[in-house]
């Protein structure tokens, strides 16, 4: 049995599913914001009513813990040390926090163009300590091409800080984007303690209930990671809730399906896309609050409209406010909402019909119209806004920059998709959105707990990304920041691929996965020419295990 628990904003959803994909039990528990651990254990206990703890093979959780902590500024005080060198003059605005700047420079081939100023480095380390920082994040431009400056900075910092309170950008993320790498390193260090405490709580609670099965945490890219390593990169768990929903939809449909995902909530609607069984990833990385990061995440976009959105009147015209004033009028709330309009039009059975009619009457009087016309207008405003956002996602994907002739000749095009509703709120809107988008639609069984299902059935994601600069006789591994000697002379793509696969197989083994579960997702080779002759090559290869589910859910066979 696999347990999945999603600690969401309003509810904590849980599900028990067999490895074969049969849902055995579901549970819903209100989320207690002040104590997420309590919400999680409450849900777990409900699930365990019908199960013996030793039947459990894995517990997977997704949580808003980190998202909330970042948005509410509940992170440790951490210093950010930046070495930018020539190029764009770094400004404070590029980073989520005010950084300490330090002199030194590395170029795009990893060559030192200006040595690190060690006196300044020692001074900054002391400054961080004196400012009361609990940890320090370090990011130097092109650190993934040459990590020596970050390592030297680490040495200076170790005099004042314990090893686990120092984060070096090259060890965490290999992607080219220095401000995002800096922000991500900062968030990693600043959230480590909070996350570790939470995970320890989870581990204790689970073990106390007699479950000895492994515990995994869901990441923003839909992969799972064991509790032990999750604490190393806690920032990867932001947006694990939406990722869980996407995976849930994946599990509730046949493999290779092309799907649009729509989750209409009280105040926001989340949208996503699955193309031929592959959830769409955001091109540069997740953004959270004022932080742009390199964290791999599904491309999920949120629209500020939902069932509880207040409907206002401006100059005799109906409009959707960006706020929630309370529950829907038909549920005893203060203002008319889309939920009232749906109830009035018979598109939902949620709430009190009389009050829904009153709500529409209120709007009708104020706009000199009739209740039916007003209700239809409210619904069309919501549908319009959602469709607009959907078109935005599709357009963003289709317009992703292309850097090769081949890519321009084979452009991204979104095929016909099936609109899939999850979450269970305002489902009456889904056929209307589908009609407007000219697509089919579905609301699968268990769509209300798609998030927990997604967590339960998620699989690990991991990769091996190798970049070799054979002229410089070296290669680096992006996932760990290791710099190693290139063993093959001028080198070929095949040799680089073999090294990447070697590394991939090792990681796969650590995850207990088949060594061949990856695919080459990126490969590029450039000749390095000097004075009209080829000196070497720059080769980049990525082998990746993409997000997926252990099994697809078999409908209609439940153990309940």
């Amino acid at each position, binding site marked *: 049995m696999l347990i999945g628990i999603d600690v969401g904003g309003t509810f904590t959803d849980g599900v028990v599913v067999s490895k074969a994909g049969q849902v055995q039990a579901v549970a819903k528990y209100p989320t207690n914001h002040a104590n997420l651990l309590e919400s999680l254990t409450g849900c777990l206990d409900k699930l365990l009513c019908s199960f013996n703890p030793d039947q459990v093979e894995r517990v997977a959780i997704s949580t808003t813990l980190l998202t909330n902590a970042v948005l509410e500024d509940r992170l440790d005080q951490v210093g950010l040390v930046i070495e930018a060198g020539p190029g764009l003059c770094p400004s404070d605005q590029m980073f989520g926090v005010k950084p300490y700047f330090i002199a030194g420079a590395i170029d*795009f081939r990893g060559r030192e163009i200006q040595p690190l100023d060690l006196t300044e480095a020692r001074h900054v380390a002391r400054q961080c300590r004196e400012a009361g920082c609990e940890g320090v994040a370090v990011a130097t431009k092109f650190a993934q091409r040459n990590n020596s400056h970050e390592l030297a900075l680490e040495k200076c910092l170790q005099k004042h800080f314990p090893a686990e309170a120092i984060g070096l950008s090259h060890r965490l993320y290999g992607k080219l984007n220095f401000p995002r790498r800096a922000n991500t390193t900062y968030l990693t260090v600043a959230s480590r303690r909070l996350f570790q405490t939470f995970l320890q709580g989870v581990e204790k609670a689970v073990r106390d209930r007699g479950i000895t099965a492994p515990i995994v945490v869901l990441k923003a890219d839909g992969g799972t990671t064991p509790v032990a390593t999750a604490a190393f990169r806690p920032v990867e768990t932001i947006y694990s809730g939406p990722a869980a929903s996407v995976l849930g939809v994946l599990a509730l449909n046949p493999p290779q399906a092309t799907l649009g995902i729509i989750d209409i909530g009280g105040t926001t609607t989340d949208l996503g896309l699955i193309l031929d069984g592959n959830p769409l990833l955001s091109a540069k990385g997740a953004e959270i609050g004022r932080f742009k990061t390199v964290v791999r995440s599904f491309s999920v976009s949120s629209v500020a409209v939902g069932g509880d959105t207040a409907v206002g009147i401006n100059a005799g015209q109906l409009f959707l406010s960006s706020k929630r004033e309370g529950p829907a009028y038909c549920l005893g709330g203060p203002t008319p909402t889309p939920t009232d309009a749906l109830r009035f039009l018979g598109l939902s059975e949620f709430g009190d019909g009389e009050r829904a009619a009153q709500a529409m009457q209120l709007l009708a009087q104020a706009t000199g119209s009739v209740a039916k016309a007003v209700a239809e207008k409210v619904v069309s405003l919501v549908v319009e806004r959602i469709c607009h956002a959907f078109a935005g996602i599709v357009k963003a994907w289709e317009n992703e920059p292309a*850097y090769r*002739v081949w890519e*321009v000749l084979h452009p991204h095009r979104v095929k016909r998709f099936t609109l899939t509703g999850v979450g269970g709120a305002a489902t009456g809107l889904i056929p209307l959105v589908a009609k407007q988008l000219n697509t089919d639609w579905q609301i699968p069984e268990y769509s209300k707990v798609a998030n927990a299902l997604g967590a339960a059935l998620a699989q690990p994601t991991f990769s091996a990304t190798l970049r070799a600069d054979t002229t410089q006789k070296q290669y680096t591994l992006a996932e760990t920041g290791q710099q190693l000697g290139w063993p093959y002379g001028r080198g070929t793509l095949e040799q680089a691929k073999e090294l990447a696969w070697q590394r991939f197989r090792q990681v796969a083994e650590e995850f207990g996965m088949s060594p061949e579960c990856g695919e080459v997702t990126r490969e590029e080779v450039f000749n390095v020419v000097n004075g009209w002759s080829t000196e070497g090559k720059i080769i980049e290869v990525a082998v990746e295990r993409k997000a997926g589910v252990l099994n697809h859910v078999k409908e209609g066979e439940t153990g309940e």
Partner: protein
Amino acid sequence: MNKTGVLFFPAFDWSLGETHPEREERLLYTRDQLFEEGLMDLPQFVEYTPVLAGKKDIARTHAVLPGPDEHVTAPHLIAAGGVLTLAKALMAGEISRGFAMVRPPGHHAMHTVYGNRGFCTINNVAIMVNFLRRTYGIKKIAIVDTDVHHGDGSHDIFYHDPDVLYISIHQDGRTLYPGSGFPDERGGPQAFDRTLNIPLPPGSGDEALLYVLEELVLPAIADFQPDLVLNSAGQDNHFTDPLANMRITAKGYGDLTRLLNADLAVLEGGYAIETALPYVNLGILLAMAGIDYANVEPNPCVTDTVPLRAIKPLVEAIKQRKKVSIPKQDWYVFHKDVFYDTDYIWEQRVEKIRGCRQCAGLQLIETGAGANRGAKLENLVIKLPFGVCPKCREIAEKTFALQKKALSYRMVYWQDQAADVYRYFDGKLREVVDEQPD
């Protein structure tokens, strides 16, 4: 906010040869630098992706010979299409300026295209100019070509066009490919002083470039009053370029960009792919977006620049030159030999321009090309310029009708920019083999 549009098309899978300067790797380090800076995350920039230029976009600017299906391949169409993508974004008001960093480059491609010359097959900037005129009715456009090589392709395409001001600043043609672009080449009789060539001595630095810009280029633009200013931005004036001998820094390019304040810039050449391109391209982008570019390049140590006093007489000579009165003739005739260095082809051309007082003047161009000089003039181009007058059109139509019967040319190309209609008439097959109707 004023957004700067960026179109980056490095064509990582296209080259003119493994060790050729125009190879896959050329914009690799530019990519690394731009990506590592996180430039596209800044609110000042918006990135676009290219589409293929249409056949008609090419036909409007070039006569592709011996026929329309020769020479032009997907990479060329993407580079030109990328430039058009930014032009559309500019005209739609999505961006207030933009920089298209595309490969392959274009400014050595001339009106007639028999192959590749100076690494160029079709002329991206010229295609954009004519697209803007046709699609948006823009009347006057200035092109400032800051590649180190004379942009003889753009020079050729607009030499007889009174509505396009072409200004080229380049290393003196007596010391560098293509060996043209002298101050006395001032435009054809129908477009006199609509071409301004400013050759600089090898070793000219930032100071000289900015001096020339302020003393000659900006006044010429102010005088012309164009609706748009475009920059053919070659990065090979940089002091580290392996093919040329100038001493410009990345900061100098930034200053140039800021002062020129072009609406759109298009990458041309530049072959110091590690030492210049990442920093010069970044400098241009920052300058366009109004961001500080003072520290864009590591340790620019430039020595041995030509002193400004050596530049001043050149500038004075251009400033002081007299208005020339050109005697009116019914037809003006020009002879031109064009060498295609990449493909080793010699083209010979005889151009007749009608000395028309009503329009820019009909052009009848006899042309041929081969492995040696003196190729037979076996093709005819009938070019009706934008705003062609009825008389010129009448002559053009008669000529085309006559040649369709006489069959004395292998290919007759009807290039009607005014009606946006383009036809290739094959003299052997005796039929129109390609038609781009309005």
